């Protein structure tokens, strides 16, 4: 977090438009199922999921249930497992038989998503699990593919994709920087 401000890849308007498009795609794919559950991965995925729920409510007139998930305890990669305090996981409805969309900011190796799918299974048997991400930066290490993508951004491994969100960082932007 010490790197200088890098190149802006997505502006606030770009993010807003991408979120609106993803909301339409989610509704289309799930035939506007009112059972829809959006589960945001801590921490930025949670805010993205809440935004998607708001947009969906504006479009379709119902707000999907939003849950939060911290899949830390299900991770397999030692480097990041214990870096930050564990955050609460809370899905305020049963997911049994319902379509669930996992929401995260950046898709990279896919290891978080694998952990999240396993963590989600403990909450029940969803009829279908889909994945929405704001940025897909490539370099997958597992056979995982997102269903809804804000933007594909090819990156080098040494680069760092930083998603800034008003709720946490004070403004909206996706910035490409160097690994510090």
């Amino acid at each position, binding site marked *: *977090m010490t790197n200088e401000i890098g190149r802006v890849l997505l502006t606030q308007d770009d993010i807003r438009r991408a979120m609106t498009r993803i909301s339409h795609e989610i509704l289309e794919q799930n035939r506007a199922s009112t059972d829809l559950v959006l589960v945001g*991965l801590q*921490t*930025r*995925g949670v805010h993205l999921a809440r935004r998607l729920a708001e947009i969906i409510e504006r479009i379709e007139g119902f707000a999907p249930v939003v849950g939060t998930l*911290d899949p*830390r*305890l*299900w991770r397999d*990669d*030692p*480097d*990041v*497992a*214990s*870096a*930050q*305090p*564990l*955050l*609460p*996981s*809370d899905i305020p409805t049963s997911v049994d038989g319902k379509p669930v969309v996992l929401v*995260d*900011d*950046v*898709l*990279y*190796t896919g*290891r*978080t998503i694998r952990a999240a799918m*396993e*963590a989600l299974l*403990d909450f029940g048997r969803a009829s279908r699990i889909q994945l929405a991400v704001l940025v897909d930066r490539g370099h997958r290490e597992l056979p995982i593919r997102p269903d809804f993508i804000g933007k594909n951004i090819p990156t080098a491994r040494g680069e*760092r*994709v*930083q*998603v800034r969100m008003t709720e946490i960082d004070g403004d909206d932007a996706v910035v490409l920087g160097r690994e510090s």
Partner: protein
Amino acid sequence: MTNPTTVATTGAKSEEETAQLAPKENAALPPRQHLLDLDDLSVAEITDLLDSAEGMLEIAGRDNRKTPALRGKTIITMFFENSTRTRVSFEQAGKILGADVINVTASASSVSKGESLLNTVKTLQAMQIDALVVRHPHSGAPYFISNHTDASVVNAGDGTHAHPTQSLLDLFTVRSHVGELAGKKIAIVGDVLYSRVARSNIIAFQKMGAEVTVSCPNTLIPDEWQLGSTLGEETGFGGLKLARNVDEAVDSADVVMALRIQQERQEAGHLPSLREYSERWGINSQRMALANDDALLMHPGPMNEGVEISSEVAHGAQSVVEEQVRNGVAVRMAVLYTLCAPGKSSRLADSDEAQS
């Protein structure tokens, strides 16, 4: 071996201050291997543990509460003193996190055949263990053990010295009711001289900025302390108030904590009788009425009802005794996870990469 009581009492202040000054996400904390006492933990480290315990509490409350976080890790609980809640709490915490937990009790082990502590530890070490949770009647035993093993050592209570996980769960319990701990008034009533819970809790609550007052018989404080005074910084407990009587301590307190009075203390001549203790220092509804209306009543257990705490208040509306037990599992999960998680050797303070 190093003298355990001098190991960690100095030098903690500056670390604590720098940790408070630095923004939390930049606090590059070194990986911690052991949890032996709270006095060498920074405020940021304690806060991280309490924050993690929030997430753990949710997992511990699920119907299906098995996680693979510490799968393949072996945790040994080694208790040289009797205990129900602490041992079961650690065992449950380890099992929810997916570790294999093996319980060793002194009476049922080779210790009863005369094996030395050192040899017991070396034997266990040879079996590739990841964490050793130790309760021992001698102060400093966990420090001694930590010098002879590669495993993470967690102090589950040593002699009259420290009981760090009890204090963490007490901090957690109070925080969950009152929010910010700074400025809150904590009354600790009981055996201050011999109680490791008292010592650890004084350190813990003072560190988090709370005002701590203790009340106990004159015979159960160190000789050089004076009831009715406030301790100076040189004692290591700067700002600790020693109340003249229990009513003064409890007066407008946010938290009233009664400590177990041990039968041995009376036998050693520290107390005239348990009945007199109960009358002069026991927490009952009249005394609770002096505290704040929404004050919490705590007790680390096991309780001697009718001695240091009346049954009425022990099971009354202000009592959080059972909550303390429940929170104990979550706090110990946070401790075991922080010490034993596979990534502790390369702690990255980089949340974005964590989301990759």
